[in-house]
């Protein structure tokens, strides 16, 4: 949890419950600790077999999804911290085997300048430099952009409208001028401008305020009532479904 707080968006921590307490109990645990809505994700599904005996143990993935290290969390604490720091620093770096003509494209993409990144690759193609690698890079950058849009859609679908909106605004800014995603941006802009989504955003803002107050002041029976009222006030929204579910986690 400390690392999740320290690195914020630069690191994703996934806590995997290994004692088969079940999804609901896992949720209750995070709720009681005030970690609901926090930076770390929780799951009772094991994304892989780490091959370790006993808990706590860990698997650390690098920026590209490769396993960098695995072991026992307490014993490897400083090793893990060093590896995370290296990965965070290396974000946006071109792979070691990337042609020199394309290195700038990786840097521009990491800075959130998607069109500039594509222009660098297109220029390489025009010049006849590293043509295959440049084409592959354009394809992979386009895929990354599409995945980000899909994530925004899923965030909306999960009732996380405030986060979805913030991510969409950042994406639009970064992808200005990129033809490959222009249609998808136009469609999502319509979605965000709709009354339905505006209501979702209002509901989510209210929910976040309610949760903040609950975690700051302590969770009690009033919290459940507030969540139930929010679900009524914003009935029909995805956020109301979340609020209704959260109300069931309050154990008096």
């Amino acid at each position, binding site marked *: 949890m400390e690392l999740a707080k320290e690195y914020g968006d630069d690191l994703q921590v996934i806590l995997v419950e290994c004692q088969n307490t079940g999804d609901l109990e896992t*949720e209750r645990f995070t709720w009681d600790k005030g970690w609901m809505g926090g930076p770390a*994700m929780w799951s009772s599904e094991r994304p892989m*077999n780490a091959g370790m005996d006993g808990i706590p143990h860990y698997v650390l993935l690098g920026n590209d999804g490769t396993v960098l290290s695995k072991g026992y969390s307490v014993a490897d604490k400083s090793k893990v911290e060093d590896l995370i720091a290296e990965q965070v620093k290396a974000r946006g770096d071109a792979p070691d085997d990337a042609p020199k003509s394309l290195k700038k494209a990786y840097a521009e993409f990491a800075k959130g300048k998607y069109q500039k990144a594509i222009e660098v690759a297109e220029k390489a193609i025009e010049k006849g430099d590293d043509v295959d690698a440049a084409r592959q890079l354009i394809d992979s950058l386009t895929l990354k952009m599409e995945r980000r849009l899909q994530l925004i859609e899923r965030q909306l679908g999960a009732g996380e409208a405030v986060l979805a909106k913030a991510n969409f605004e950042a994406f639009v800014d970064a992808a200005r001028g990129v033809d490959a995603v222009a249609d998808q941006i136009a469609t999502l802009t319509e979605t965000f401008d709709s009354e339905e989504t505006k209501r979702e955003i209002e509901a989510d803002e209210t929910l976040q305020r309610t949760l903040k107050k609950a975690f700051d002041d302590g969770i009690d029976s009033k919290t459940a009532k507030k969540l139930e009222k929010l679900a009524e006030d914003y009935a029909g929204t995805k956020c109301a479904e979340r609020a209704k579910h959260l109300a069931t986690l309050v154990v008096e």
Partner: protein
Amino acid sequence: MKPIHTLGVAAGAVLVGALTLSSARVPSGNQDGIQVGAVASYQFRAAPVNARGVSSLDDLRGKPVLIDFWGTR
């Protein structure tokens, strides 16, 4: 008595052989499971708590991911 002794030695040899094979097969600690250098991929069946739309490890590419296995009891 000799045949019995021979049988006993033979049985012992089989037992030692079986144990050797068995211990070679049984993974110990870090020998089993996903290895360093492998690319991890997983699609969650149910959205994790605080998932914020993330449904797979692939969604998290571009940043380091620390998967911590522990318990709540």
